[in-house]
């Protein structure tokens, strides 16, 4: 069995495998597939709770992933933010001495979540400029009606 604690390197190797098969588009196609089939929990929470659904979704996943983060929900303003001070996934990949992370590993978060949230009426903005230090930030904002 591959443990869920071993998933991150399996994920990174999957991206490398797909890119070697068919180029970067093959990786993007997979991210779209995964977003459509696997992120129904995020989709359902936001459908039922609006912007608070983001808070509910990430307060479970980021705690289970043992991330270093601050999250902020402002329902009046319709915004939700995450400041990731140490991403557990990228951080782990960088710690392994015998593994080279997929060159655009952090790109998957942007594609997966944006694809769920934008069609639901939210702006999704991310800053990946420090992802080589396992840091990033995300702002999700309800679009004006």
């Amino acid at each position: 069995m591959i443990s869920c604690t071993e998933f991150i390197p399996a994920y990174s190797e999957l991206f490398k495998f797909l890119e070697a098969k068919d180029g970067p588009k093959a990786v993007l196609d997979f991210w779209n597939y995964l977003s459509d089939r696997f992120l129904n929990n995020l989709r359902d929470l936001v459908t039922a709770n609006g912007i608070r659904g983001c808070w509910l979704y990430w307060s479970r996943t980021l705690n289970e992933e043992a991330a270093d983060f601050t999250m902020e929900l402002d329902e009046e303003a319709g915004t939700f933010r995450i400041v990731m001070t140490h991403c557990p996934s990228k951080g782990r990949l960088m710690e392994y001495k015998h593994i080279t992370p997929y060159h655009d590993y952090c790109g998957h978060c942007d594609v997966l979540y944006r694809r769920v949230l934008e069609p639901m009426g939210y702006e999704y903005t991310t800053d990946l400029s420090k992802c080589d230090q396992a840091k990033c930030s995300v702002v999700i904002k309800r679009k004006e009606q």
Partner: protein
Amino acid sequence: MPKQTMTRKASDNVYLHKDFHGALSNGIEYIHEKYGAEAVRDYLRQFAGTYYAPLKEDLIRRGLIALKEHYDKIFKAEGGKVRFTLSDCELQIEVETNPAVQHLRAQKIPVARLFSETIRTVGEELCAGTPFAVELLAYDEASGRYAQRFYRKA
């Protein structure tokens, strides 16, 4: 409504996100659909050959106890029910409760048709180039219960 904030350090939580089993299952199914069954095995060989390289070295150096310790650790972390029978020449792993399949079934996440390759192919790759071999003795598709035997080649 007031703002809500939450700040956490990595040390505040135990690293155990079982939904990752679902992402892996989807990844395997995607490769199967798009590139076929052998591509799934190729991917798992690539992953296992890379990620488990230190474990494989340990297997060569210390023998089957290295695999026993590895699997004991991950099944304990995930709360799986497993029995190990170890001798100098053989390690039998009997998994009564497979935490990956159990989680997928509980969350109604489809289990990839070739999910068992995460055991079979990964085991074979762990043994490739070592004095050991492996066979998957049994695998139950519904529950993920399985029995696997690693042994020293004659």
